[in-house]
């Protein structure tokens, strides 16, 4: 039984990719075989966190969508690239960062159905325990698809007026798609806030459980793009929060 987890946010810049990487790493450290697929084709970036060099990226999700390769050909084992002791496995299916590829997706679009097929094949081919889907912000067809097939959905928001409305819409849409585990995470919360108060208010407003409230941390910001935080600082409170999120997503 593979668990499919989608990480989503209505707007960009919420720390979605970062959260995905941390949860992936924590699950892999627990012994799971975890696949991470970057469906944010328009603005890819998660590969950086997993230390995947762009020059070694011979195939990508894009190639699969154009039918030039099998999806497992675009999967890279990055277990040993991120440091730390990981008993499981991490496979990364990146999106192409080539400008031409990005432009082609924007111009021609692609069949979302291919994604679903790809997900299934990936789980089978790599014998995955968990498939993490790093989605594109907003609610387009492939995002809706990702949500629809997910066993768990983590919606990340920031305490920012611009996030409130869109998050509300996303939560509502996810409910209509009967996602079994729907969780919210409030990220980048200024430290002057009372974290528990924020959790209660957000749960009350969206009528949805909040998996974690993560304060804005200068350390986190400084290390965010340099590697996976939770592996570097396993005893940090933020790492504990991620661990809790991972556990709740796994149900």
């Amino acid at each position, binding site marked *: *039984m593979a668990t499919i987890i989608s990480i989503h946010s209505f707007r960009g810049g919420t720390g979605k990719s970062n959260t995905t990487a941390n949860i992936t790493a924590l699950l892999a450290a627990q012994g799971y075989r975890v696949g991470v697929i970057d469906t944010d084709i328009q603005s890819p970036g998660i590969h950086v966190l997993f230390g995947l060099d762009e020059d070694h990226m011979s195939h990508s999700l894009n190639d699969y969508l154009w039918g030039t390769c099998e999806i497992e050909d675009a999967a890279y084992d990055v277990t040993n690239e991120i440091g730390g002791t990981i008993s499981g496995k991490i496979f990364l299916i990146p999106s192409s960062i080539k400008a031409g590829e990005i432009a082609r997706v924007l111009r021609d679009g692609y069949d979302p159905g291919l994604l679903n097929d790809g997900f*299934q094949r990936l789980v089978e081919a790599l014998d995955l325990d968990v498939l993490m889907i790093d989605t594109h912000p907003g609610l387009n067809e492939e995002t809706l698809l990702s949500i629809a097939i997910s066993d768990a959905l983590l919606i990340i928001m920031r305490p920012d007026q611009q996030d409130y409305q869109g998050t509300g819409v996303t939560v509502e849409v996810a409910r209509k798609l*009967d996602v079994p585990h729907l969780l919210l995470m409030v990220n980048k919360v200024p430290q002057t806030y009372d974290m528990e108060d924020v959790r209660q208010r957000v749960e009350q407003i969206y009528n949805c459980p909040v998996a974690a409230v993560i304060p804005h941390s200068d350390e986190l910001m400084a290390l965010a793009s340099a590697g996976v935080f939770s592996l570097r600082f396993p005893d940090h409170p933020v790492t504990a929060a991620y661990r809790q999120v991972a556990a709740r997503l796994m149900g």
Partner: protein
Amino acid sequence: MAATATSRGVRVGLVWRFLLAALLIGLAPLGVISFFAINGYQEAGDQATEVTRATLDEKSLDSLQLRTVETANAIARFLEDRVQDARTATLIPRDAAAYTTFLAAHQTEVWYLGGTNAAPVELREMMPIFREIAYVGADGRERLRVADGKVVPSNQLRNVSDPANTTYLSEDYFAATKALDPGEVYVSHVTAWYVSQPEQLGTADDPLKAVEGKKYEAIIRFATPLYTEAGAFDGMIVLALDYRHVMGFALHILPTSTQNFTVFPDYASGNYAYMFDNEGWEIAHPRFWVLRGLDPSGQLVSPVREEMSREERGRHPMNLQYGGWADPNLPIMYAKVMQGEDGFVITVNQSNAKKATTYAPIRFAHGVYAEDGIFGGLAIGAEMAEFHQAADKVTTSIAAQRRSLEIQMIGMIIGTAVVVVIVAVVLTRSISAPVQRLGEAAQALERGEMAEEILNELQQRHLRDEVSDLAAVFKVMAEQVIQRERSLKQQIAALNIQIDDQKKRQQVESITETDYFQSLRASAGQMRRRHQDRRSGEQS
């Protein structure tokens, strides 16, 4: 800032405080030093002047005294020489040629003013000392007389045994000389017709300008008795000394000038000499009407007295014995001289000017002076103010230097004040300007703004100081304050998560009503199940 408006007390800016302090520190000592310097200078100058003045007075007085004594002695010597001349005259042949030669042979210089009142001319001329020489027989009849270089005709020769026949109608030299022993010489008093004030001055108002007026033409008789070898009285030789030669000793003295001598003294100046004889009569003086003289009958004109009118006083000579009313020193001076003493008296005139008068006796013991041994006295008067002309020059120079010192001091004070003001203003600006800027930054902070530009500027000044440090601290503080404020504002926003439900419903519907969503929803459960079925299958 609001705080300023509510604070009590007077607001005195930094500039003014600094200025006040700097001026006080800079100028007060300078002022005090200047005051003492100028005062001390003045005091030292005054003392120097006083000492100089006193010294000069003393020295001048000493020198004047010495001159008086010396001149008196010179007069005495001159008279003594004439005594010798009188003796010599007994030895020369008693003829006209020898007598004429005798008169011409004895000459000295006479100084006098000639020309007119309007254009006086100073003249110096060699003149015979004696105006007359006569041989008088034992009976009193003149045998031979040469007067003013001319032999008197025999019909004009007189019998001088009777004083009424003498030149001045009252001369008793014949009797007096006849009574003398051989070798002794008779010397008469100064004998002249009296010259009154109107006669001397004429139209002039001052003796110095009365060149054309009447002169005092006096003589002194020198007579030596002649005796035969048997010892019988044999007549006498009589000489008439031209008194101008004696009077000149006194009149030409100029006591307070470096020139020392004058042709005719300026009575008005107070600096002149005069003489008096053993009877107290004045016999040398620029004012001739005070001099001993005879009236037309040959009687002495009585001395001037206090009760006389101004006009009358111009017609009577001065006798020191009776002149106490005019100056109490006169009788005293006469008495001292007759005791053979020299000295000085200091008198103060009505305009408070001091006048010193030094006097000395003229020792001479012949003829009418034999009994006293004193011919008379010489007195030199001098205005003391003129003694210390040198000291006054010192005073003037000190005053000038003090003025220049004052000007320098005032200049220095003004200069220092200007420099102090400039320095204080610049210094204060350098302190108050950044403080003011910091105040502006604080005001900005009050409005919730970060005055980054001002704070950076203050921090990065070329000359760093406490204000720079303060600015740095202030900047950090301001950042924290603003950060905190911003956080507080956000907290308030977070407590108010506003979601427009109607809009949300519309947005959700716009998604859920699409065919894609409907089909997705329909197949979603199936897709999930398929995954799970597969997994279950694998596991089983």
